[in-house]
């Protein structure tokens, strides 16, 4: 006998940090919410990313939502009952030539014109003051005070647990195999039972493109595997989180002395078997950048290199908004910089679902921007 479909006000597909954050805000608004996660919560990009909590250097379109999210990050215990290992100090993107520094100055002027005053350009002396270990080749930096980093797995689990506290149901090991209409509702099929819901939210990360297609939205999304490396413990030599202006690098020394290095350099991801392949040449290149910026790193041992699976859109901006069919909402394709945005995305998507106007400009993230 076929089991009856379970019903909910909202079904969220994808138990990453965005799915859990959206779930938290919806259960707080009193909606019966079920999250379906194909593996376990925080298994992919949400749990294994570099943990950067960064406004600095974002695309201008993302600055308002990043700023709103930053404000939420200042009270994570209030939001999710855990500090998530969040530490903020300074975030710097160093320039290794004057051209990079000049571009940074132009960017800061643009930001100021929009009313955002958090970023500034600092000279070589100030840079050395903030980070005495930095290489002499660095001529200055784009700087923000108050950005930092958190522990990604712990943060995602904190959102999950808080959502559960308010009654969210989180089903793990439950891949969605089919999505279709049933009257005005959506019917969600999984190997362990079906769900019927008027509202479906796609927070499936790198798998978001596939889910979107089932929901009637064709959104080009590529899966890649951004790579990371971590070193053995070192004596404390740098407090700020560091990036480079020329090429992508994220660099931070954690509380236990280990140094986490990400490079925006990608390995190969496979959506079908959850596997990632490292690209040794790419790793070698971003470790070289790390060594160029901090010569003190040269003799430190790397103990582990890995990659997560992440979805990238064509313009590297996320997809956040209503789908073309009724009852469909998307929040995916964060293109390797979505971790910091999760607290604000939770509120924004919940506003959309409740039929309210979001208090943040999300037009640049509209689903329809890819339609020809």
């Amino acid at each position, binding site marked *: 006998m076929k089991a009856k479909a379970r019903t909910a006000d909202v079904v969220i597909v994808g138990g990453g940090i965005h799915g859990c954050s959206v779930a938290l805000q919806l259960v707080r608004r009193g909606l019966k919410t079920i999250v379906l996660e194909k593996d376990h919560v925080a298994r992919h990009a949400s749990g294994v990313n570099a943990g950067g909590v960064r406004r600095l250097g974002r695309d201008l379109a993302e600055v308002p939502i990043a700023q709103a999210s930053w404000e939420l990050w200042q009270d994570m215990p209030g939001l999710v009952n855990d500090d998530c290992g969040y530490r903020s100090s300074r975030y710097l993107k160093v320039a290794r030539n004057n051209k990079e520094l000049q571009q940074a100055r132009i960017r800061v002027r643009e930001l100021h014109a929009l009313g955002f005053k958090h970023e500034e350009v600092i000279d070589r002396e100030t840079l050395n003051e903030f980070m005495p270990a930095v290489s002499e080749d660095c001529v200055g930096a784009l700087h923000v005070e108050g950005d930092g980093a958190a522990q990604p797995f712990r943060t995602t689990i904190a959102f999950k647990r808080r959502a559960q506290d308010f009654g969210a149901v989180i089903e793990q090991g439950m891949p969605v195999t089919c999505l279709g209409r049933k009257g005005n509702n959506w019917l969600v099929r999984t190997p362990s039972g079906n769900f019927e819901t008027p509202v479906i939210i796609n927070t499936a990360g790198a798998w978001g493109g596939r889910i979107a297609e089932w929901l009637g939205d064709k959104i080009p999304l590529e899966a890649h595997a951004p790579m990371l490396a971590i070193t053995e413990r070192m004596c404390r030599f740098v407090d700020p989180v560091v990036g480079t202006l020329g090429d992508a690098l994220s660099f931070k020394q954690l509380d236990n002395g280990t140094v986490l290095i990400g490079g*925006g350099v990608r390995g190969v991801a496979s959506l079908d078997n959850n596997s990632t392949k490292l690209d040794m040449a790419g790793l*070698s290149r971003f470790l070289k950048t790390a060594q160029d910026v901090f010569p003190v*790193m040269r003799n430190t041992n790397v103990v582990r290199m890995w990659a997560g699976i992440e979805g990238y859109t064509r313009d590297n901006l996320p997809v956040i908004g209503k789908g073309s069919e009724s009852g469909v909402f998307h929040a995916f394709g964060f293109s390797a910089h979505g971790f910091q945005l999760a607290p604000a995305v939770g509120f924004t998507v919940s506003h959309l679902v409740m039929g309210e106007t979001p208090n943040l400009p999300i037009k640049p993230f509209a689903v329809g921007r890819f339609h020809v």
Partner: protein
Amino acid sequence: MDYDVIIIGSGPAGLAAATLIAGKGGKVLLLDEQLRPGGQIYRNVENTSMNLRKILGSDYACGEALVKKMRQQSVDYIPGAVVWQVTEGREVGYSVNGKSSLVRAPWVIIATGATERPFPIPGWTLPGVMMAGAAQTLLKSSGLAADGAVFAGCGPLLYLVASQYLRAGVKIAALLDTGAKPNYLAALPYFSGALKRWDMLAKGMKWISDIRRSETRVIKRVSELRIEGKEEATGVSYRTYSGAAGRIETKNIFLHHGVVPNVNLAMAANVEHLWSDEQICWYPRVDSWGCTNVDGLLIAGDGAGISGGLAAEAAGRLAVLWCLKELGKIDPTECDSLARAQISALKHETRIRPFLDNWFKPPEPFRVPDGDTIVCRCEELTVKDISDVIDIGVAGPNQLKSFSRAGMGPCQGRYCGLTVQELIAKKTGRKMSDIGYYRLRPPIKPISLGEFAEMDAGPPANES
């Protein structure tokens, strides 16, 4: 240089494999972490004094012939090569003298042998405590032996090392034997099979009787062990199943509960592994030639399942015969006929295993610790730390690793993986095989950042 086969490890499996393939005209690269060939079992065998040979025994000395044969063949042998990665595409990353290189071949044989099982008891991380195998390494490589040490645990290697110590004229303060009665009953059905290797049984009996005839205190049926000391080990206290208790003063404690396949390299290459309830360890799924689920990647020797040095030789030759046949250097008939002797040698060598596996199964209290005992040495996490994380619903080793950092240190879980897995199994009532193991990532051994940065790895494939 274009190689036909890359072999990792120059223990018995790697030596036998390299010798055979070179003899058939194959181009072979033999990479080994040690500076001398021989692996753990025949460590430093080319250079030991006559006196040390007498101490280590004839089983050790016979490794010399194996090394000699390899030396006579045209094998590109690189000692001091730390292999830190093997990919599914059979790209091998290795480091020699602080310089890393990548090399690829159509066939790669992993022959990296075994590693000692973690022995998590209170105080096991104190200076002065080491594994019995490590104590034997010191004896083989530098003739060093500690006077007045305590040996604790069970298993053939423990008795062998103790008897070698005695032959070296070194006093042993005590041997604390953790062998338990249920093991003997479980092993009984396999005794008749083991009798076919009465020669091996006799060898073991001889080690044990050497220990008994010496002045060494032997305490049997030990049910509890605790190493004492603050800055370093100062003694070991014990309790037996019959309730007797005591304390022995010593600065050196050698622990041993058998060896398990060294799975890190193979697991990181996505080789499928299976769980053995009998040997309480993971082992790679290989066919009778040593082939794994990864194309062109074979595993030979103890790394594919613990069977000892002579079995490893046969397995190494079988792996190479498969490669030679596939490379077209021998025809299938020759391959099959050459394989026959190796298959029967392998069968002969493994007959005693079920008996030994059951007889020397490490009892649970020494595998699943409690309280403040350290589980992950690298991150200094105790059983309580791990249990707290399991309690908040973190249901697998990888989630636990992300949450607590257990297994994230330089040893990549070698010291804590099996313990963490068993703690989860015990606390959640699930089967060991369902819990799984850490996802392992390169580098398998720590390599300096500068070395990676300066490595010639070709152009990046893909960047943002």
